[in-house]
């Protein structure tokens, strides 16, 4: 029976053990991710014959002298053995790192993800600076798509074959098919530059500075991003609901004389939500690691914009930093989802 644990609360112990186990797994996972990313950006180029000078020449001016390139090699430690470079990176995360700015040294306290090769800024503060924009975008859009997507899916399933169902599914199909950089630019063109209802690109303002502007600037990005996901969730919910509504226990519930609304929400929807939650956790986790296309289209300086620019500019420390950051969110989201399973679906046990 729920809430009637045997003496000694083994239920709580199970939960704690579960979390500890998962956290250890998560840390190991992050270590593997960091090594894999490091290998992709440092090991493979080396293996393909890239010299430290060749790498350094990307981070100096157009006509850099051999001395300047050598200077950059030393400053960025590109001539160290790879294991030493990885060790320095790992140590920086735990213990911090110093960095030469010229006349003085810059300190980068733990967790130091290193300094950008391109603009010499420490990676961690940059990530922290970019996170609120990404959080604002992802959470706002998530609420929007979850509510609209699931509602439309439920209604579509209950009114299967109706005009409403068909219309909703057509729109959903469009939502899934149209890329964000298309819907984003169209919405900007219509609502910002022609009608002037919303501000244009690049107008994101932190909520702490101006909440009204924050909201206005995010409406179009939220809708654009949510449109894509809502469409997907509507289709998933509809399919899940249709399947569940045919189950025996729904018939039993109805036979017991339960109200239709209770049958739908308490029984059918609850079962349907389990797979939706799984995907939601993954989607949200991914987005917290940066909504690359939406942020690029609307010129929002978030984590996604940061990483796409870093990849473009071969800014390895930033790429590494964002990858770990994103992996962290995905692992965290998965952990939360696993815990929520138990709440939503009594058949799932944490053990």
């Amino acid at each position, binding site marked *: 029976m729920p809430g009637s644990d045997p003496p000694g609360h083994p239920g709580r112990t199970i939960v704690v053990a579960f979390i500890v186990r998962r956290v250890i797994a998560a840390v190991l996972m992050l270590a593997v991710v960091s090594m894999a990313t490091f290998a992709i950006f440092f090991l493979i180029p080396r293996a393909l014959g*890239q010299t430290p*000078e*060749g790498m350094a*020449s*990307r*981070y*100096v*001016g*157009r*006509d*850099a*002298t051999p*001395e*300047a390139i*050598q*200077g*950059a090699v*030393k*400053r960025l430690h590109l001539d160290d053995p790879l294991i030493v470079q990885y060790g320095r990176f790992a140590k920086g995360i735990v213990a911090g790192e110093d960095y*030469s*700015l*010229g*006349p*003085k040294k*810059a300190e980068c306290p733990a967790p130091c993800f290193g300094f950008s090769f*391109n*603009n*010499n*800024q420490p990676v961690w503060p*940059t990530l922290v*600076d970019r996170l609120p924009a990404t959080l604002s975008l992802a959470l706002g859009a998530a609420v929007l798509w979850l509510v609209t997507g699931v509602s439309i899916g439920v209604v579509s399933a209950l009114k299967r074959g109706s005009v409403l169902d068909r219309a909703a599914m057509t729109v959903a199909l469009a939502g899934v098919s149209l*890329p964000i*950089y*298309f819907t*984003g*630019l*169209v919405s*900007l*063109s219509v609502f*910002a*530059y022609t009608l002037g209802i919303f501000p*244009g*690109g*690049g107008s994101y303002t932190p909520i702490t500075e101006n909440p009204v502007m924050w909201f206005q600037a995010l409406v179009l990005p939220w809708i654009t991003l949510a449109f894509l996901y809502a469409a997907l969730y509507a289709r998933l919910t509809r399919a899940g609901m249709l399947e569940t509504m045919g189950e025996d226990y729904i018939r039993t519930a109805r036979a017991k004389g339960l109200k239709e609304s209770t049958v739908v929400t308490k029984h059918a929807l609850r079962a349907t939500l389990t797979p939706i939650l799984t995907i939601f956790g993954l989607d949200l986790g991914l987005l917290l690691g940066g909504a690359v296309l939406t942020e*690029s*289209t*609307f*010129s929002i*300086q978030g984590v996604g*914009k940061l990483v*796409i*620019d870093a990849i*473009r*500019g*071969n800014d390895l420390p930033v790429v590494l930093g964002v990858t770990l950051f994103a992996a962290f969110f995905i692992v965290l989201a998965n952990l939360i989802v696993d815990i929520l399973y138990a709440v939503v679906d009594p058949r799932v046990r944490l053990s």
Partner: protein
Amino acid sequence: MRKTNALALAALGTVLTMGLAACGGTAGGGGNTSSGNNATGDAASAAKHNDAYTKVVNPSDAKGGTLKYALSDEPDSMDPGNTYYAWNWNFSRLYSRPLMTYTAQPGEAGLKLVPDLAEAPGEVSADGKTWTYKLKKGIKYDDGTEVKAADVKYAIARSNFTDELTDGPKYFAQYLDSGDYKGPYKDKDLNNFKGVETPDDYTVVFKLKAPFSEFDFLAANPQSAPVPQAKDTGVDYEKAVVSTGPYKFESHEVGKQLNLVRNTNWDPATDSVRKQLPDRIEVQFKQNAEDIDNRLIAGQIQVDLAGTGLQSAGRAKIVNDAKLKDSTDNPFTPFNRYAMISTKVKPFDNIDCRKAVQYATDKVATQAPWGGPLGGEIGTTAMTPTTVGYKAFDLYPNGADHKGDLAKAKEALAACGQPNGFEANVAVRGDRTKEVQVAEALQASLDRVGIKLTIKKYPSGDWSAQYAGKPDFVHKNNLGIMIAGWGADWPSGFGFLSQIVDGRFIKASGNYNMMELNDPSVNELLDKGIQTTDATARNEIWAQVDQKVMESAAFMPFVYEKTLIFRPSNLTNVYVHPAWGMYDYTWLGVKQ
């Protein structure tokens, strides 16, 4: 329908061209050949296409407002001593004053240098190796302290002799007689820097290794803007540059946003080139390139800082709308887009085989990828029309319509001993769509006379260090033709040519003389020119160098690049400055 297509194109462009913006607008000079009639302008309503090219559009002395700039990329650095972007050599003058700068006028007149921090142009010694500048008295930093000669010396030392500030050019290190000076970060005693002397607080003396008659052009580089040693924070200096210009830093979030406000310690009486109209200047970095165009057209921002013009979707919109087109200008950039034909790779080591390529090329087809006539004018010389000393000539006339003279090409092939053509490779930066398209057009052109080209693509990041700029690699891989481009660092023949045609600059890696032309007569003319103090005689020599280079048939120009820049109606005091091929950022104002 057209709108949707344009938007789709815009969107596609955003993704595909994300990597391209970074390289646009590397620093340089240039100008336009039209005559300038300065300081008079038409009313906004009457302004036509290209009006800002020859005169000031929307002239106004009205102060106030916020002028908004956007950039699709982030700068190498906002530190005037650590940047190699043309737009930044223009923009940084808002907060830094080099010894010399360019006259604030459109047209050729703008290419004339005028003293800025200095009282007068440099005084050169009889042997041509010592240049002396006297500073104007009473010029202050934004904190109210006075600019001293030692600050100019320190600025040169930090920007040219340190391992940390690597983004700008190193011309001072190249030309100054500094021995083995280690730079101010390793050697704190500035007295050990012998290349620059400061006999008193208002005199700066440059000691050169060899005579260099164009030193005033170097003195116009923002690296000569003063930096007080106590305020230098190395690579972090860009966060809070100490200002001598009409604006000062309010805040700078690197890679994100820069805000400038009026500098009350700037005295307009000491400054003949700048204005101080807006109250505030805001720059957003890393903005969506396509969206920048839309915001410009909607008047939400005033200037695309890069100065490299509209993206393809924006261009398409302009071309189809006469009214919008009137709000654009189409200046030359400092760039020549060309192919270098190796003088070492067979069979191009034979000049007639190189001539065959020159005659057979359809230059209309190779112009198309740049955007047709709006993107560039068909080129026939190594120097661009906006370089001081440029003279028009065409040694390889390839038909009245520039589509190729196949008969001449076949004659050249016969003379080369390859009457039926041959197989060769053309190297190109694979991630630069336009250059790949040029290579394809060249491939189709040369196929007409039996020259079968194979396109070899290399990443642009290592293009110069590992591939086309590495003669060993070029020889080993038989790269006969290489597609490249060059923009001068200052608008003279020497500034344009020396790095790409001087045989003594052929480097084992990072080589820009990819054709490996080592013609003693070219090298001697360059030496002679740079020691000639009379400007007219000097410019004549640059034209001779150009002639010699083209005679080698190793240099094949495609287009003198042009941009299409948008001029919003709320932007005032707008004219294209010839030294940068973009608007003069120190003159702009905004209607409120």
